[in-house]
């Protein structure tokens, strides 16, 4: 694939920031959008804005088809057995809350356990803490090694009969660690335990096959896979989606309503109360078209090259320590310096047009585990170039010189 023509699809990459060409290395926070996604959002409002699933008129039917076509496209992309198992959400956080909330009402009982890992984003910690608070269940944490890999032996020992669900990230947003989720799911299933996978950080880098993984739930955000913000997907196995109670009440999710008793709509609508982000859902379909146009072998090689180069070069800089050195790692480089504060580094790099993330990355328990208050994080996407990585490394050296 030709990186230059790929980059041309993303108008923001040609922007200048602080009079320097933008180098966007904060893809873990959100990815940029191709023109096709941006145009699609505009087109919806300009040409067929109407509410869906309830209109007899032309525009409503047109919008409904577009929205449902997008759902089909997404279902096919992740190899879901059916599109009714693909629930539109606001994002990963929303999807996890939906499942955790459902588990807290009727499934989790006092003395039960929920198993998460030590590298989870707050979005995969707090919803389960709430669920445990409601239900009297306990939250248990799979420990991680110093290099940022999951302790699989400890995991096996934690998989007791008390565990009612395992909820785990596919790729760590802070460390880049790629967890062996297929194996993790298999081990849980041997004990009859369902598994939710937080795919927020994986969908941008690799193609997901929910049936191959055999995940009971797989959640992700549209905005991290070149789609609009405020969109996301919850994939669930049908038996689980039928078992879970509705999350929110309102329009679209009901079959019939009386003051005495309301019956709920079928999947997927049971979990989609209220008017959704229609334009966003349709545009997420466009992001899927973009992903479908990619050669993922190329993406893998390209991102690996960016990761290896940056990691090797940064390691040579005195005082820098990489946080997270798993063998199987996504294109994320988190680091700290023994003198310069990550926040200062981020500020100086910003002056040079380079966008990185600094702070705790919504993973405070992980920061404590790694013994740091925060890190500076460069996260690469497929449209980043090796030249950008070089500029970043040199800019980092310059910023450290200023800060010392």
């Amino acid at each position, binding site marked *: 694939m030709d990186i230059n023509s790929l980059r041309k699809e993303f108008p923001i990459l040609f922007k200048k920031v*602080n009079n320097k060409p933008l180098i966007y290395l904060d893809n873990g926070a959100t990815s940029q959008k191709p023109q096709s996604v941006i145009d699609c959002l505009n087109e919806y409002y300009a040409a067929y804005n109407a509410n869906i699933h309830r209109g007899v008129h032309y525009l409503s039917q047109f919008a409904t088809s577009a929205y449902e076509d997008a759902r089909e496209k997404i279902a096919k992309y992740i190899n879901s057995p059916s599109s009714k198992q693909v629930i539109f959400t606001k994002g990963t956080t929303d999807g996890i809350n939906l499942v955790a909330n459902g588990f807290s009402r009727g499934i989790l009982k006092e003395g039960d356990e929920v198993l998460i890992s030590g590298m989870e984003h707050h979005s995969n910690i707090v919803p389960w803490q709430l669920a445990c608070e409601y239900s009297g269940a306990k939250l248990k944490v799979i420990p991680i090694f110093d290099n940022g890999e999951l302790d699989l032996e400890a995991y096996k020992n934690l998989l007791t009969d008390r565990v009612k669900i395992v909820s785990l990230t596919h790729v760590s947003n802070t460390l880049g660690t790629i967890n062996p989720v297929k194996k993790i799911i298999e081990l849980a299933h041997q004990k009859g335990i369902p598994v939710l996978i937080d795919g927020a950080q994986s969908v941008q880098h690799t193609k997901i096959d929910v049936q191959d993984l055999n995940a009971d739930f797989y959640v992700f955000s549209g905005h991290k896979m070149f789609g609009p913000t405020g969109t996301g997907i919850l994939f669930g196995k049908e038996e689980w989606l039928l078992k879970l109670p509705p999350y929110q009440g309102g329009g679209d999710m009901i079959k019939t309503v009386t003051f005495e008793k309301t019956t709920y709509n079928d999947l997927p609508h049971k979990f989609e109360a209220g008017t959704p982000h229609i334009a966003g859902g349709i545009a997420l379909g466009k992001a899927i078209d973009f992903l479908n146009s990619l050669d993922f072998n190329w993406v893998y090689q390209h991102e690996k090259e960016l990761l290896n180069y940056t990691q090797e070069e940064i390691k040579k800089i005195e005082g820098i320590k990489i946080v997270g050195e798993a063998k199987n790692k996504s294109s994320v480089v988190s680091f700290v310096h023994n003198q310069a*504060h990550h*926040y*200062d580094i981020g*500020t*100086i790099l910003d002056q040079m047009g380079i966008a990185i993330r*600094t702070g705790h990355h919504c993973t405070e328990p992980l920061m404590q585990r790694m013994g740091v*208050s925060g890190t500076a994080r460069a996260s690469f996407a497929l449209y980043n170039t090796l030249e950008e990585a070089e500029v970043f490394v040199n800019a980092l050296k310059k910023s450290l010189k*200023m*800060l010392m």
Partner: protein
Amino acid sequence: MSIEEKVEELISDFDLFEDWTDKYEYIISLGKELKGLEEKDKIEDNIVKGCQSKVWLVANLQEGKVRFNADSDAIISKGIIAMLIKILDNESPETIANYNFSFVDKIGLKEHLSPNRSNGLVGMMEKIKTFAQYYNQNK
């Protein structure tokens, strides 16, 4: 030197800088010059709210003037608060309580700060004022 004179001096310092590098190097040097706090003073009560890095500010009254000292785990934050202290240290509580901090806009500092850092700057100014108001009311 009056506050106005100190502000004029700071603005003329900033006017000399041709690009952002010099500006930041100056802020960093101010941060390095500031004495900083002992560990015992780096406590929750002294934390400035709204900063992404940790910033601590303490004050005491000496011969009718407020004396400030501050520290931060990030050098740019320390430099920014050092700049505020440079202007407002050793002034009477009344003067500081009534001061409107317009020099922050004059040196174009806000435009150069991220929204997050701007929040931190507002937090610093508020804490400085709170100290001054306290000493002013408890004269």
